Each structure stands twice: as C-alpha cells, then as structure tokens.
C-alpha cells in the first residue's frame, strides 16, 4: 500500500508542469498586478477569520456583561431580603 502511494505521488510529481501559471497575473504580470494579487489574496484569506474572530470576541464580551448584570441583580435581591452575603 505504501509503495503504491509512493508510486502515485512520484507519478503526480512528474506530471506537474514546470511553472503553474493558471493565474493570469502570476507569470507575465506587471509589478502592480503582482502586488494586487498578493493584497487581494491576503484580504480574502484574513477577512473571514477576522470577522468570525470579531463575532466570537463580541459574543464573549456580551456574555460577560450579562453575567455581571445577573450577579448584581442577585446581590441586590439578597440585600433586599436581609441576607448578608
């Protein structure tokens, strides 16, 4: 099984072209297009991670706020009932 995998990997590697230029700006593109390609790749990679991270951070902060609010409400209720915490 392992040797079959090895043969497959070598065969695929031999079939790979010398330069993969499926992207129109990777090979003959200008410096400006190369920069644009890198910037947009970075943007499209980072943006979803930043948005999901931001949403999780915001939810965590909101949970903390609600818990604090509940704790204060419980303390107030206990004080009203005459119990020293």
């Amino acid at each position: 099984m392992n040797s079959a995998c090895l043969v497959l990997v070598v065969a695929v590697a031999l079939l790979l072209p010398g330069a993969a230029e499926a992207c129109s700006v990777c090979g003959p593109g200008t410096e400006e297009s190369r920069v644009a390609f890198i910037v947009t790749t970075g943007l499209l990679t980072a943006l979803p991670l930043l948005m999901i991270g931001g949403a999780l951070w915001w939810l965590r902060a909101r949970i903390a706020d609600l818990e604090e609010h509940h704790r204060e409400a419980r303390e107030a209720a206990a004080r009203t009932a005459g119990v020293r915490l």
Partner: protein
Amino acid sequence: MPQRPLQPATDPGPVAPRRQQLLPNGVLGILIFVLTEVMLFAGLVSAFMIVRANAVEWPPPGQPRLPVGETAINTAALLASGGVLWYANRTYAVWPSRARVPLAVAIALGAFFVLFQGFEWLALIREGLTLTSSAHGSFFYLIVGTHALHAVAALIALGWAWSQLSRRKLRQGTLWAVSIFWYFVVGVWPILYLRIYL
C-alpha cells in the same frame, strides 16, 4: 428568657438560573447575512483590483471617466443617512414615538442616494459606458449595481420598520436588525468609492 438567634425575614433560596437571549434572532440572522455579503463584495473588489492592475490604461481608451465630485456629495448623503439612523436608534431606546422623524430623514437620505445614482447611471450610459462596452463598464455596473440592489432592499426594510413604528408595533430587535443592514450598506460604500471611482 433565652434569646433566639436572629433569622433572616425570608430565605431567598437558590436563584433558579434563567436563560437569557444574547441577541434577538433577527439580529443574529442579519449579522450572518452581512458577514456573507462582506465576502461577496470583497470578492468583487478583489477581481476588480486584479483586472485594473493588469490594464495598460484605466479607464480604457474611449471610455468616460466616473463622476468623482458628484459621487462624493452622494457619498456624504449616504454617510449622513447612517448617522441619522444611529440617532434614530438612540431616540427609540428612550422615547420610541420620537424616533419616527429621524428614521424618516434617514430613509429620505438613502432614497436620495439611490435616485442620484440612477441619474448618474443614465448619464454614463449616454456617454457610452455600458455593461458590455469594456471591463471598466462591466465591473462598474456589477459592483455598484450590487450595492444599489442592497441599498434598495435595505430602504424597503427601513420603510417597513417606519410603518411598524407608526403603528406602534415595532420592536427594538427588529429596528436593530434593519439598522445593521443599512449600516452595512453605508459602511461598504466608501470602500467601493475609493476603489472604483478614484
């Protein structure tokens, strides 16, 4: 007479945990929708940036330049609309019935933005910039048109919220959700303006 130990008047006992919603369902739904829309616009702008960077001359020869100055005024109207809507939300939290006027002003400013863009499109079409005239025209109408579509949808939602408010049926969560959609429309526009018009 032996004294009894002091007891609390009432024993509150253990407080039953109560589940509380972090944010209304409508708000969560619109947030997820907005996140996906951000990626849609990021993809469109990325494609535009690559094509523009590859072009020898931009705009292509024979194609009109976009009206930067006039659109700057329109951009200001849209940003003002977002600010007024924020004020309407603040007012609603304190005195709901008083939020009608700022909400109507926000809708009017948004409608001005869409109508102004419509006139701008008509002028550009007359000058020869069409969807098929060049990559410039294709990207312009695709990206700005997608934004306009969102603006119209958000304006319809805001109008519906205003009518609900007039009938005293509007809930805070609903106004919040509709506002988030409009803030998205307002927030994405300056990026489009900077990338496409300038």
